[in-house]
């Protein structure tokens, strides 16, 4: 094949990049149009804000999952980790008793510290134990889940102090300039995530590791450190998600965070990150999380899907969303 140097113009390059990253957004727009056709109430500001706010936990967790998956790993423990973190956070605040900012800050600190430690544990076992991440995190998933059941003795861990509950409540239900706080939180997390993944050498190392571990090793990438860090980032994201989650219902139960790991992974994949690693798309992930929540919302708002078939239609919509993406890829 004849290979000649053809310098491409900068604008053309940029356009191509945009098309690929835009694919999940296009799927999102199509869903919104579909939703509006099904029920006019869908397009009300309150409904849309509800949906996007609800997607915040999964979106924040999925930003962390983007790092883990882009580096070629997997974390199945995030749902259980969220439940355990929420439980420990509430227990910490209950042990303080007083309804002031100090108690709240202590609880938040405990949550972030615990979830980061859980992530560190996952990371160290994966790297130093040289065990498949699927198995490691399947194991810790069970451990974290059992710990929360044990802490709750099978029941519910609730913020006992009602004043504290009211003090904390705005973190989920409050707004800043009309935008719900959870939305601001997940936009912030996604922005920082995108900055780290796209603009730092750590982010570049994550992608290199996911592309080909051997090449990364031969290129002097500190693979153990990078891999462990991805799990810690995942842990911290779970912690942040919990900070937003706890004020909603003020409690943690053994069913908190059930199947969140699968939702997070689905959001990551819908967003265009390769499940085998090597490509990471933070903004796509966020859109993926919103798409998941939108699909559930449209199901409830629609009148023609029997409650028995909701799961099937949801599954079909997710697959169609992926197909839309693929066709956009190809059409580029």
């Amino acid at each position, binding site marked *: *094949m*004849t*290979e*000649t*140097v*053809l*310098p*491409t113009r900068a604008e053309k*390059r940029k356009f*191509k990049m945009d098309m690929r990253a835009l694919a999940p957004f296009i799927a999102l727009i199509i869903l919104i149009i579909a939703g509006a056709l099904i029920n006019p109430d869908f397009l009300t500001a309150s409904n849309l804000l509800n949906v996007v706010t609800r997607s915040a936990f999964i979106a924040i967790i999925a930003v962390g999952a983007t790092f883990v998956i882009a580096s070629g790993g997997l974390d199945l423990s995030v749902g259980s980790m969220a439940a355990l973190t929420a439980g420990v956070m509430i227990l910490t605040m209950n042990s303080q008793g007083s309804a002031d900012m100090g108690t709240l800050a202590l609880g938040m600190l405990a949550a972030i510290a615990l979830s980061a430690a859980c992530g560190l544990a996952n990371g160290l076992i994966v790297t130093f134990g040289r065990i498949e991440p699927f198995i490691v995190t399947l194991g810790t998933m069970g451990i974290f889940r059992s710990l929360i059941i044990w802490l709750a003795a099978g029941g519910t861990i609730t913020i006992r102090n009602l004043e504290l509950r009211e003090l904390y409540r705005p973190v989920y239900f409050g707004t800043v300039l009309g935008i719900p706080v959870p939305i601001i939180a997940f936009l912030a997390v996604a922005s920082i995530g995108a*900055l780290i993944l796209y*603009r*730092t*050498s750590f*982010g*570049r*190392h994550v*992608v*290199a590791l996911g*592309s*080909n571990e*051997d*090449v*990364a*090793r*031969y*290129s*002097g*990438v*500190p693979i153990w450190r990078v891999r462990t860090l991805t799990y810690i980032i995942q842990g911290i994201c779970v912690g942040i998600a919990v900070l937003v989650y706890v004020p909603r219902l003020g409690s943690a139960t053994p069913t908190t965070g059930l199947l969140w790991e699968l939702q997070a992974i689905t959001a990551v994949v819908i967003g265009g990150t390769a499940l085998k690693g*090597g*490509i990471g798309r933070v903004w796509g992930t966020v859109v993926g999380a919103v798409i998941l929540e939108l699909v559930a919302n449209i199901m409830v708002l629609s009148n023609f899907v029997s409650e028995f078939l909701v799961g099937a239609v949801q599954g079909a919509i997710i697959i169609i969303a992926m197909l839309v993406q693929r066709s956009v890829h190809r059409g580029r």
Partner: protein
Amino acid sequence: MDSVLRAENISKSFGPIEVLSGISLDLKPGEVHAVIGENGAGKSTLMRILSGHIAPTKGSLHLNGQPITFSGPVDAEAHGIVLVHQEILLAPDLTVAQNLFLGREIKRYGFVDDKAMREQTRDILRELGTSIDPDREVSRLSIADRQLVQIARALLVPHKVVAFDEPTAVLTPIEAESLFEIIRKLRAQGVAVLYISHRLNEVKAVADRVTVLRDGRHIATRDIEGLEPLEMARLMVGRDMSKLYPEKPETASDQTVLAVRDMAVPGFVENVSFTLRRGEILGFGGLIGAGRTELFEALVGLRAGTGTITLDGKQVHFRDAREAMAAGIVYLSEDRKGKGLLLQQNLRINLSLAALDKFTRGSFIDVAAEETALDGAIKDFDIRTRSRDLLAGQLSGGNQQKLLLAKMMLVEPRIVIIDEPTRGVDIGTKEQIYSFIASLAAEGRAVVVISSEMQELIGLCHRVVVMRNGRVAGEVAQDGLSEDAIVYLATGVHEERAAEIAAGHA
């Protein structure tokens, strides 16, 4: 004699780019027809058209004088045209017999008949002159044996034309010699053999006729009689190639930069000691599997090993490649696709990966600086690419090697270790890589070249250390450099004997 397969005025375009234009070629029964050309000359495309993998844009194929079009490689195989791929395309966890019959299993009452397949495998392998166990898993075979299995798999179907794509790229001289015996046997059976190779000496040894391609055009078809490798090279490149190797730089000094004592890698290397001097090119010769790669991987911390490493008089130990790079030592893997480059990523990301710190401003990567570096690398290393947005995996072998060199030079190393610098690289690019290696030494760096090509070691290096079975078999100084000297140390026998052994073996 009439041709069995004939191509007439074949052209092939991918989009607006024409990669083959107006090629004619005929293959006669009982001849070995070599197709040579630089990477990108269109050899592989031609081969893929002849074996039915892709259809030509213009022109026609004739089988036994009848025009024919193939619907795909399976169709071409049904017509007796088989291709032995350059890459090993076998399932590593299946046995030899299972691989041979993969997708065409012999069945008995609806179940696979392992016994019959094992018998047939044994027969065909014996015909090829080897006694590989049909029940052995392919992952436990040597590269050369895998190549034989691949050939056996191709020859399993009734064949009139057998095409070999760079079959000796991974073989030692002895193994290559037995392959030539197989090819000669095929020729004696009246089969037409199409042979693609970079190694002009081999072409001279095995081919009857040679077709030369350059830039997708047909340059010449000649009988091998009176066609010497140097002339083939001139036809391929379009200019005089008598000076393939640069002058050896006169910078080799007595100043030792690196001294290695009693290096050992469990299972691969024992008691290896050597020194490397400033401004010199030190060759490492030996057969594949002699432990050269493992030795240097252990040296730079990529695998576990023991021994004393002294760098500039100070004892050092590297736990990973990062530490070695920080000390100014880089290792360029022989396995470019598996360990050198991220094939799924673009050139920019590949280029800066090893020296990312140099492109970081504050906490963030300076993409503009990366782009500038890529411009520089494309220019300095003459990386030829259709577009700079290409993925590394879309580059040809030679351009991948240039990109890998550019990537590692960004680390600004003082010691450069290059493993098989020209494997899978065409002759024009080889010349560029050789002169680049010489310039590294001329700048005062120390260079180690690990190579299985004798000519390369002789033409390029000041000294050559030869390894055999994980130990240093000896060292050849510049004055004494000859193929025979290296082969003797590498195998323990002289060159003519090696050919005889191979012949007896086959």
